[in-house]
Each structure stands twice: as C-alpha cells, then as structure tokens.
C-alpha cells in the first residue's frame, strides 16, 4: 500500500491515493486534483517544472495531515504531490479525504490544498510563450497562525 503522503516524480494516480485510506466507517470521500493550467496572469503557459525540497516537503505534507486530524478528528487524509516537468492538463497534486460525513471531507481537502500553498517547500517554474519565471507565493512558515486561520476559514466557508 502506498504512503498517505508522498513527493514523487511519478504520474499521480488518484484511485491509488484513495486506496491508501482506511474507509472503515466512512460515508464520503472527496478528492481534489490540481492540474497544470494553460494560462496564468495573462500568459499562455507551455509547461511547468516543479522543484521541491523533498525531505521538508514530505514533512510539510505530514504536518498538514496532523493539523487536519486535530481540526477534523474523523477525517483521514492522503496527499501526493508530483515534481519535475508536467505538461498542460497533467495532475500536479492529488488530495483524498475520507470521512463519515461529506462536510468534513470537503473541508479537510480544501484545508489541505490551501496549506500546501502556504507552507510546503515546492516551487513552480513556469515556461510560457515568451519566457520563463519562478512563481513565488507565500513565505513558508507553519507557525504563522494567521495563515493557518485563513486556510481554516476557506475550508469552512
């Protein structure tokens, strides 16, 4: 059985991700799949290259699973993030959340993707028509309570 969290260069398999979750007592599974989009900030994107600090990125995913467990004790969460070159339409991240009831599964999955964007050391190198650029989002600080509260708010909106 695959790990609940992973940083991998392999193509993501959402069904395999769901199978990592113990579904005893579960009534709902939500999945979120992030795809490489063909446009960004008015640019026509050709492909992306994701780079990660693998060891810390995995620790970051594990931390998100722990945070989500504190927030939604009945939810089981699995997160796989891919690195390396990805073409338009390919999956860069897959999240699966299993829960007795749907509301918590949706919330935990949303929380996880927001936290990934806040704290996990992964970077997109965007190759677009006319150039390339490193995308820089959030300063990665898991102890930033404001950021965490924001992710929780989005999850429960």
């Amino acid at each position, binding site marked *: 059985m695959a790990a609940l969290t992973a940083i991998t260069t392999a193509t993501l398999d959402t069904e395999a991700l769901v199978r990592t979750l113990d579904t005893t007592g579960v009534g709902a599974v939500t999945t979120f799949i992030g795809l490489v989009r063909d446009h960004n900030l008015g640019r026509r994107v050709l492909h992306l290259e994701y*780079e990660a600090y693998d060891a810390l990125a995995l620790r970051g995913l594990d931390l998100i699973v722990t945070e989500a467990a504190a927030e939604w004790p009945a939810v089981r969460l699995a997160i796989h993030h891919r690195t390396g070159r990805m073409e338009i339409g390919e999956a860069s991240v897959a999240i699966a959340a299993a829960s007795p009831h749907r509301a918590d599964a949706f919330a935990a999955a949303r929380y996880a993707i927001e936290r990934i*964007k806040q704290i996990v050391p992964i970077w997109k190198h965007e190759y677009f028509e006319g150039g390339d650029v*490193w995308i*820089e989002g959030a300063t990665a600080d898991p102890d930033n309570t404001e950021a965490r509260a924001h992710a929780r708010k989005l999850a429960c909106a």
Partner: protein
Amino acid sequence: MRITIRLFARLRDIAGAGELVREAPDGASVGAVWAGLVEEFPELSPYQKSISCAVNADYSRFTAAVADGDEVAFLPPVSGG
C-alpha cells in the same frame, strides 16, 4: 565549522548551485549564514524579507544556532499545488 547550504528555485539560479559547502564561525545563527551568503551573492539580498529557512530538513528560524555538519536551507516563497 562546516555547513551545507541548500538553495531552491530562484535562489538556486542566482547562486548557480543548489548546494554549497561553507565555513561558518562556531555558534553562528541561520541569519548569519544567510548574511554570509548575501555577501557572496548580493543579488540574493531582496529575498531577505520573504524567505524562510530550514535546518536539517525541518522548519527553523533565523535566530536558531547552527551546528557543525548541519544542512541549512533557504526557501523562497513557495508555490506548490
């Protein structure tokens, strides 16, 4: 003492390497390691306010002390997902 510095994304491009081995005075903080790096690569200096750091693949602080053999990583703002 000798430490390994890890750089990623744009920081790696600026320094021209993802991994650098450097000498640092005993008891140096992560912040001091960063200052030394900026001296070597002045183009890094605008990142002062937006980077975060890690020591031995765990989230850390710029005030944290570094020990011989440590791996110190500097992380530009992240953009996963």
